[in-house]
């Protein structure tokens, strides 16, 4: 088939447009990376655009030798790791039991869960609850109240429903209990869904900011996002014990941004493999 002239023009314009759009998303990152590897004088005089000027590792040395930033990084790693385990434990148990046909109250339970999707828990009463549970200013406040995401629950539940009944029944015949069936039969089959949901949870924990803003008072428990926000807004990295001679705070700001997104970029290729299936599963369910 001959391709018409107007079609050719469209393909050309479309390609240019999509490339520009993508570029608009990438240029800021290129700029930040260039700044993070540049010397303070070059940054302050506005010479750095998309390539490092007077290349140096100074900014990274400053960020990585700052104990407050390192500590916040550690807090975020801890919350992400333990928090995701808690998420998976709660979500998997609920999704597995409600996906079994032996579970008689599935309809009622699903409505019970869906209602919370429409009426979100109000902010102040939740705060009062956290306070009366004694979770204020504790890292548990960042993990327990967000133990289940209803969206992720539905993704996992609809996946587990697809596990063939016969496989589970044959495991029963062999005398396996519920927990063993779940761990030895369902887990291996649901691996892609578990990975999707686990990575979704991990990214959410890593990026979460509001919960810490509300529940964490002590600076020692600040997760990285809160610390990063402080650095971006106030621009003063607490570097009292350090040599401040060539410290460009703008360079440090940008470097902290890079450091905070490196873990995300590191897991991104793995997420990308799974999230399309996860999104469409959840989308259909809704």
């Amino acid at each position: 088939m001959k391709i018409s002239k107007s079609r050719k023009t469209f393909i050309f314009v479309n390609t240019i447009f999509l490339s520009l759009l993508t570029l608009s998303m990438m240029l800021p990152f290129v700029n930040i990376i260039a700044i993070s590897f540049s010397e303070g004088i070059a940054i302050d005089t506005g010479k750095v655009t998309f390539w490092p000027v007077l290349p140096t590792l100074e900014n990274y040395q400053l960020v990585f030798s700052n104990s407050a930033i390192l500590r916040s990084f550690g807090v975020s790693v801890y919350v992400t790791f333990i928090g995701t385990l808690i998420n998976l434990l709660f979500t998997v148990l609920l999704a597995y039991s409600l996906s079994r046909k032996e579970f008689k109250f599935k309809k009622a339970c699903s409505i019970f869960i869906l209602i919370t999707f429409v009426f979100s828990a109000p902010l102040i009463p939740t705060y009062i609850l956290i306070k009366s549970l004694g979770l204020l200013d504790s890292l548990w406040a960042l993990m327990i109240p967000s133990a289940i995401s209803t969206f992720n629950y539905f993704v996992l539940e609809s996946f587990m429903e697809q596990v063939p009944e016969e496989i589970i029944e044959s495991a029963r015949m062999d005398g396996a209990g519920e927990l063993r069936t779940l761990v030895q039969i369902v887990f291996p089959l649901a691996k892609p869904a578990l990975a999707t949901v686990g990575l979704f949870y991990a990214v959410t924990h890593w990026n979460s900011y509001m919960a810490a803003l509300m529940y964490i008072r002590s600076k020692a428990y600040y997760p990285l996002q809160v610390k990063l926000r402080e650095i971006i807004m106030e621009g003063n990295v607490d570097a009292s014990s350090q040599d401040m001679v060539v410290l460009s705070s703008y360079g440090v700001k940008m470097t902290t941004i890079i450091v905070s997104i490196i873990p995300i970029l590191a897991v991104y290729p793995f997420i990308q493999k799974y999230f399309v299936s996860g999104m469409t599963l959840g989308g259909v369910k809704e």
Partner: protein
Amino acid sequence: MAIYSKNQLTIGDQARGSIKKKNTVLDNILKHRALYFMALPGLLWYLIFKYLPMMGSIIAFQDYNLFKGFSGSPFVGLKHFKFFMQYPEFFRILRNTLVIGLYDIIFSFPAPIILALLLNEITKNSFKRTIQTLVYIPHFLSWVVIGGIFMNTILSPDAGIINYFLKILGFDPIFFMSKPSYIRSILITSGIWKDIGYGTIVYLAAIAGINPNLYEASSVDGASRLRQVFVITIPSIMSVVVVMLLLRIGHFMDFGFERVYVFLSGINQDAAEIFDTYIYRVGLQGSQFSYSTAVGLFKSVVGLVLLLVSNFLSKKLADKSLF
């Protein structure tokens, strides 16, 4: 003979079952107690962390005092609701929330649909995949990072990319963050920038599900590519679009705390503050628990009404609804 007696047995079982219907549920629970036990932590979690706070909204009708608790605090009826209805600041916040929510539906909602349609026209798979991989990335970054990127590398008057190009073209730099008139555009643009790529996933999946025979048949009939988009692609994904739109309207009032808070400052507060950030500022930072819960309750009711009305309209007009 053997068959006959077996049938009898079944009839007997059924009769017994209907007499003791109550017990079958109990039997089921006892028999599968492990299964029910496994569901318990999750269901309890919903009860404690979702339903308890919902019930805690009762403090909107009290003068809640942390030390007196729910039972000790006096009921004051609609005092807090009457108070905020007379408060000029309240209508400013209501207007901001509605206007920003409306902008979000007008500009942010169609953006991923258009992008998905454009991506679908790309025939070179490697190029398409590369674009997809890259435009999904911003979705996975936090609002703190997005705010940092926007305020510094994109919008800053001296280091920002936009002003860098403006300078090259000979224009004066624009002080985006210090003019309140820009803030709503910034909130919407940053949202589109973050989620336009990721939002395409649902629509691309819907497009991929369209029967290819439809395209073949119509091109035999001489339909152009553009016509196919309007007669085949868009109608085929319309049901997904309507569902996504209803979901969006259901969360109309929940534009999002974090995405506004990271851009919020004393300068732009009048144009940018929405219910979520207001409740945080007045309720948590100002410790006006009852008053801000009343505001939150008002927000939820408006959101629910919007959802019910749009669901009703969509049922009538497009025969599609969430429930």
